[in-house]
């Protein structure tokens, strides 16, 4: 992806150089080659992959060619497994993520405002934060058993600490000026939360949500390999056990596409005016 965009940049710069303009509009106008070139690279990769497999450069069992993967994809799609497992994974991520956002934000706001509490809990949070959620797998299984519970717990852990930490920092970084203004206009405590604290931290919270959701989607795969008997992570580990590497690749591609889609969707949260002030600062 990084490679692609660099190449595309080269293309658009070349165009810009010719026309002599460096305005936004010009760059948009030359968007066509920059849209085509990633596609070409993708196709090129697939063709090389297919050909090298066809001429027998390696055992197609260890790396199945694209044609096999497409076949596997239609198999998994037609028998409904792909959809069922995707929904299962998305469900776990959704529940775990919402829990993490809700609790992380509430506790974060509380600790951000309540200085003494923050000092008391700071060490504990800092200590727990760097522990990978995957390290909790044994406890997750012990406490919640095999099933949705432990997967959701692990996803919750992966998102909770980033949410909590970003919220605390965001609350602490609200300029004093806004509190003084609020005090000047006679804000009540509730109004301070509604009109100052919550909207002021929203841009940071949205960014943290975007990052946490990405991490949650990474963690769900790992969690499902061990803690449950469904989902895309389970599909990978199950297919590997059956040595169906084509299924593994189908699962990987699905994970990638869903991950990309989720990120696109949540990035929409950065658009509305009441958060855009932070992202559009002059």
């Amino acid at each position, binding site marked *: 992806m990084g490679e692609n965009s660099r190449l595309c940049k080269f293309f658009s710069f070349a165009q810009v150089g010719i026309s002599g303009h460096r305005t936004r509009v010009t760059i948009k106008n030359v968007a066509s080659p920059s849209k085509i070139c990633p596609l070409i690279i993708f196709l090129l990769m697939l063709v090389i992959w297919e050909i090298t497999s066809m001429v027998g450069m390696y055992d197609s069992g260890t790396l199945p060619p694209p044609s096999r993967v497409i076949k596997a994809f239609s198999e998994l799609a037609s028998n409904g497994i792909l959809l069922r497992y995707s929904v299962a994974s998305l469900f776990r991520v959704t529940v775990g993520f919402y829990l993490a956002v809700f609790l992380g934000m509430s506790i974060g706001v509380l600790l951000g405002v309540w200085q003494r509490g923050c000092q008391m809990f700071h060490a504990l949070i800092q200590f727990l934060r760097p522990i990978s959620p995957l390290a909790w797998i044994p406890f997750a299984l012990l406490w919640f058993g095999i099933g949705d519970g432990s997967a959701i717990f692990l996803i919750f852990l992966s998102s909770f600490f980033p949410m909590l930490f970003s919220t605390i920092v965001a609350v602490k970084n609200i300029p004093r*000026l806004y509190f*003084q203004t609020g005090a*000047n*206009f*006679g804000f009540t405590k509730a109004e301070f939360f509604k009109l*100052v604290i919550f*909207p002021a931290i929203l841009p940071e919270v949205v960014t943290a949500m975007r990052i946490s959701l990405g991490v949650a989607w990474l963690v769900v795969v790992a969690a499902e390999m061990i803690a449950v008997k469904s989902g895309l992570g389970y599909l990978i580990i199950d297919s590997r056990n059956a040595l169906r590497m084509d299924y593994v690749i189908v699962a990987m591609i699905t994970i990638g596409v869903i991950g990309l889609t989720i990120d696109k969707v949540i990035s929409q949260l950065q658009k509305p005016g009441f958060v855009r*002030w932070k992202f559009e*600062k002059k």
Partner: protein
Amino acid sequence: MEYGKNNKVVVDDVQMEFVERRKVPRSEKDQGKKQGDKVEVLKSITLNIYEGEFVCILGPSGCGKSTLLKIIAGFIQPTSGVITIDGHRVTGPRPNNIFVFQEGGLFPWLTVYENVALGIRHLATEEEKQERVYEYLEMVDLLGFENHYPHMLSGGMKQRAEIARALAVKPEILYMDEPFSGLDFLTRLHLREELINMHLYIQKTILFVTHDIDEAIQLADRLIVLSDRPSEVKMNYEIKEAHPRDINTGELRSIRQQLYLSLGVHYTL
């Protein structure tokens, strides 16, 4: 202009000390001060401000003019001394005396309309609110920008929006802490003019902190000059000249020269 000489704000023997928070003192004057030592900022300030007066507080950089204004507005408690407004002791900020900050006091997450409506959110009906907001947006010439967010506005427009927000409350006193200092020269002149007109129109008490001598002479009914830290009132000068004023002639010219000298710079460079 004649004001009924009612005392509006009385500052009685206010003193202020700060605790030095830096390991290395901020200025040469404080050499030898260590972290935790007391730095005296205001040394016995006593003032009477009359109702409806436009008072400019001038002083060298770091002399505590902003601190004094924040104390009067109730944001900071003085080390000793008492502030009274209409005979009532000031204990904290109040919604009928609005503070206009140096810059960026608007809430960036609210539109201009919502910002201006902040102080009047207790009004009974939406229509009443709307009418009031538009009245003051018109006054500061911001009609058509009510749905813009502050980051879409220029510096001068932001400052005008903040003034509209303050005025919409119909405050009895307006505190302004170098409100025009971040603006370009022309915008500053325009806003000064608008502020003078507005003051003539609404006749509210305004306390205006600035380090700009010309600005102070153009705006003020009364000039208060603070000395260097620990500061005292060095001059308390009434300007009776009517607006518009030419600060290069007559009495204003001599006041100007005097001020330049007393603040330690030569009038002609």
